[in-house]
């Protein structure tokens, strides 16, 4: 599905990685590993096309993501370090406006189901600003669940989640894989997934 060819990323003075190649097939779960500052976030933002790489190509179904933009973005969902939550919108409206960016129109009932799944069933009319950090992240889980995307790109999805939250995320990934979807994720807090997982290790290089 997604193929990465000899990618290189430089930040400030540091070469984070170079000549990095890997690919993600259908129903594949890929973990990006590496210690603090090894460039995981930078890599994921490059994969999504948010950041320009110094060198290398990213192909979606064999075509570069910039020429295949619409199809790629219709089938990929990304969540990063930031919560994307509007304090003034209710939980329901927040989910809805996130879905709007993907031009998805779902019924309230469908959204309710997802909110129930992530444990926010009684919060649908609470404004975003009154949520704790973990509750905010749960909204993102509902968004990912509803996004109908084949490829999930998740940067530290376990941040701020409590034990049930972590279990939920794990089961969501398993389910998604079983439905033929793919996942690329990073985490420092060992996820326990009952499935095959590939991984890419980011180390520290110095020069090209």
């Amino acid at each position: 599905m997604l193929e990465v060819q000899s990618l290189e990323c430089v930040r400030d003075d540091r070469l984070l990685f170079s000549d990095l190649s890997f690919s993600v097939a259908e129903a594949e779960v890929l973990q990006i590993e590496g210690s603090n500052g090894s460039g995981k976030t930078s890599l994921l933002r490059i994969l999504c096309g948010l950041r320009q790489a110094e060198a290398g190509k990213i192909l979606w179904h064999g075509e570069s993501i910039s020429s295949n933009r619409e199809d790629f973005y219709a089938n990929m969902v990304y969540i990063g370090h930031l919560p994307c939550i509007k304090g003034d919108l209710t939980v329901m409206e927040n989910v809805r406006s996130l879905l709007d960016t993907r031009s998805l129109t779902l019924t309230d009932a469908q959204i309710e189901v997802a909110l129930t799944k992530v444990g926010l069933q009684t919060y649908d009319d609470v404004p975003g600003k009154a949520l704790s950090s973990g509750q905010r992240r749960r909204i993102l889980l509902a968004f990912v669940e509803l996004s109908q995307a084949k490829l999930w790109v998740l940067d530290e999805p376990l941040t701020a989640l409590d034990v049930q939250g972590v279990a939920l995320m794990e089961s969501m990934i398993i389910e998604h894989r079983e439905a033929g979807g793919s996942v690329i994720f990073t985490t420092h807090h060992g996820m326990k997934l009952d499935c095959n997982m590939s991984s890419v290790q980011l180390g520290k290089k110095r020069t090209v």
Partner: protein
Amino acid sequence: MLKAYYHLLLRDLRLALRNRHELANPLIFFVLVVTLFPLAVTPTPDVLQAMAPGVIWVSALLAVLLSLDRLFKQDYDDGSLDQLMLSPNPLMILVLAKVSAHWLLTGLPLVIIAPLLGLFMSLPTEAVSALIYSLLLGTPVLSLVGAIGVSLTVAVNRGGVLLSLIILPLYIPILIFGANAVDVASDGLPVTGQLLFLGAVLALALSLAPLATAVALRITASR
């Protein structure tokens, strides 16, 4: 695509309406700054009237300038901007939606309240109608051009003053023609020339600014 425009516009309007009081803030700022001038100089009516077009236009410009960070700042800070850029819809349309919302929320109220301020500054009636028309054509340009500036500076902390530096020089032609229209009208002369110019600039901005803003946003997101 139209649906994407409409949804985003609606979202921004809703967000603004959630904070009713904030809605009025650019307006109040506008009124406050205009009132500062008569307080600062001893106002004989003729000096007041001579100053009025400049003061009102500069204040409107500053009010728009200060409200510009409404446009993308919050979306940038909370990551929503990333999500917009990952939307399958063309970024230009989304930019246009956000700019439209911004104008409806700041430019339009300024146009509506301006006659009152003309009254405060004892402008004659013809000048007041020139003021309304010039603001009606000019403020959308302020929002459109402002969007380019904000999209370049959102990533910068403490961008407030930096933004003014980038934007104010671009605003100067609008200011000159807008204020001049009012000035000329208060002498009882026709102002079609100035208004035509403002209209032309609006058409230009409408066609180019969303594109430039989209490019600027891509640069900004590349962090």
